């Protein structure tokens, strides 16, 4: 499906969802800022992805013709395009499976437009970035990756090497959710996949160091049953 020439400069978003009202709603809400193409099923979606080369794909996991995970797998065979999956509540395992298969983020229906735009922009930002920014700032938290220095409101924080590694991973994926297994694999290696308490305890310690109220974290957000996300306040 070729896009009209006058929208070619806007980032392209492909929406794959079988519900007419949802496609209509997303198109209306997003077409101001983005060039929207729609597909009503898995096969149509794959074809549209090949033809249109979108910059972000919104993929509904509850498609009738093809399992959302299969669509994702096939896309990942030839493209690293950011994919945000749309799912319903109480399907944490579906979300985790999608994320571990290569989805970048997820949204739980019903979702607000604010959340949607934040995710889309975060996804686009990551693809647009040629090289990662060395300095990350967000509401008083500053992480200088070049100097390996972490400050909260200009006060330096001492982290253990593991705690720093985790924070760095989160910063490099700022705004995006990371599953437990993704973090464990990247920090500790595959052998530690069966020991989530290691991650749990480190996150807890990290929070105690960088959050003003560890029981109401503003930076490191728990996505229950899924993983963690470093929230960005820009």
């Amino acid at each position, binding site marked *: 499906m070729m896009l009209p020439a006058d929208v070619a400069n806007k980032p392209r978003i492909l929406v794959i969802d079988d519900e007419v009202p949802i496609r209509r709603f997303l198109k209306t809400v997003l077409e101001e800022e983005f060039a929207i193409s729609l597909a009503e099923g898995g096969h149509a979606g794959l074809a549209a992805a090949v033809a249109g080369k979108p910059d972000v794909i919104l993929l509904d996991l509850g498609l009738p013709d093809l399992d959302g995970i299969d669509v994702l797998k096939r896309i990942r065979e030839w493209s690293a395009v950011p994919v945000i999956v749309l799912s319903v*509540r*109480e399907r944490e395992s579906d979300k985790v499976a999608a994320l571990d298969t290569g989805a970048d983020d997820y949204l739980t229906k019903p979702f607000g437009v604010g959340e949607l735009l934040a995710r889309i922009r975060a996804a686009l930002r990551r693809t647009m970035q040629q090289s990662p920014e060395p300095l990350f700032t967000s509401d008083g938290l500053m992480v200088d990756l070049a100097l390996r220095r972490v400050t909260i409101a200009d006060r330096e924080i001492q982290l253990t090497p593991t705690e720093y590694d985790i924070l760095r991973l989160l910063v490099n994926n700022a705004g995006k959710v990371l599953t437990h297994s993704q973090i464990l694999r990247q920090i500790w290696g595959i052998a530690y996949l069966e020991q989530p*308490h290691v991650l*749990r305890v480190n996150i*807890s310690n990290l929070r105690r160091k960088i959050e003003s109220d*560890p029981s*109401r974290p503003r930076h490191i957000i*728990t996505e229950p*049953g899924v993983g963690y996300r470093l929230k960005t306040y820009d």
Partner: protein
Amino acid sequence: MKLPGSIAGYTAAILLVTVSSVVCEALRPHLNPVNMVMVYLLAVVLAATRLGLKPAILTAFLSVLAFDFLFIPPRFSFRVSDSEYLVTFFGLFVVGVVISSLVTRIKTNSDLIRQQEALTGSLYHLTRELATAIDISGITAALQRAVQRNLALRTLVLVTADDTLHEASGDSAMLTTEANDIARWVVRSGRNAGAGTAAFADNGFHYVPLTASGKVHGVLILEEQGSLLAGQQRMIEAFAGQTAMALERVALGRQAEEARVIRQKDLLERALLNSISHDLRTPLVTITGVLDSLMDESCHFDISKRKQLLATAADEAGRLNRFVGSLLDMTRLEAGALAPALAPCEVEEIIGCAISAVEQRLGTHPLQTDIGEMLPAVQADIVLMTQALVNLLDNAIKYSPESSKILITARHEADWVIIAIHDQGPGIPPGEEERIFDKFYRLMVPEQGGGTGLGLSIVKGIVDAHNGTVKACNRHGGGLTVEVHIPQAAGISPEGSNT
């Protein structure tokens, strides 16, 4: 009491006449022969009352002979010179017969009455025991005791239940396969069986159906070779009848209770449907109302008014979404499909997730936390436990007055972590602390606020699935505290491991 017609009776009769003769001989100088007849009359009366009809007749006959032989002139001969002594003979004879028949009749009657009394007494005793028995085993035990007391026979009582026959009381050893089959026949046919009856007469037991209102409620099996006496038979039939009525009473009671439960369930289901319908539709009223009015071109609202309307509609949409979630949670709970994925979790993290979920709804309520230091990890499903805490927080928000403080605490006690939500609302009526977690509490107690109120029962379901407990109690000075007790995760120290 000697039986009539026995040798002993006749011997006694002879003895009586002999004694009377001796007495008369002794009194011969002083008595007229006419008066000697009285002595013999006494003998006849004595024989009639004590010895029965035949010995009495013998006594009369022998008395006449003795009297004639010994005392009527010419003495020591049987010559009847005076025909008037024939009258005497006849008189003695008739007296003897009449008195002995009367006596026999009285004795028979009094025996009968005594038997009746015994039966009535036993029946009364049994009826009293049956009246106080509350279930089948009590009833059959009473029957068994009655048979034991009055007839001293081994018994086994079987009762019917949904077309099967099973033991209720008595000697289990009596239930051979043959006995079981015969008992089943008795239930089907409603007739007696066993020794002394027309059916299965060669069997060593008696089988008596316990029938009331034409329905056989059980079978009484008695061990008695040979026929039962009429008196025993009457007694057993009476017992069987009373017992059957008691069993019938229990069966009817159970039916009535089942009907009541079904009716109650129907009422509850109807109330639940109404309530769910209301809770689903109410937010829609606002949402469609707002959207309609904003779409209506004849309505002109300024920007701030539009914002207000839309904010209200958005709130109601959120409420509707949460209610749908509760319904799904409840359905999953009912279906036993909750399946918590228990794993060690940080208490602080669970609380953080719960707070984050309700942040937007806190409104003017200041939220404080007081979480213990070095709490151990708990064995929990973070998604479910977060939902439980969210439900409790939503409750606190809903029921406590604006600007009132909501406090979340967490402390460690033995092998448990106790997370508690404290509000400054109205609390709950004393005595209802456990009932508020009942599934349909709000339906049954609408004064506590309308709506379906699934939140607390979902909390209980989730906490139960964690092998924990949830308790509610009123706070001193007003407000409610709800405590969730969660087991701590095994084997991992509060410090965890730091690699």
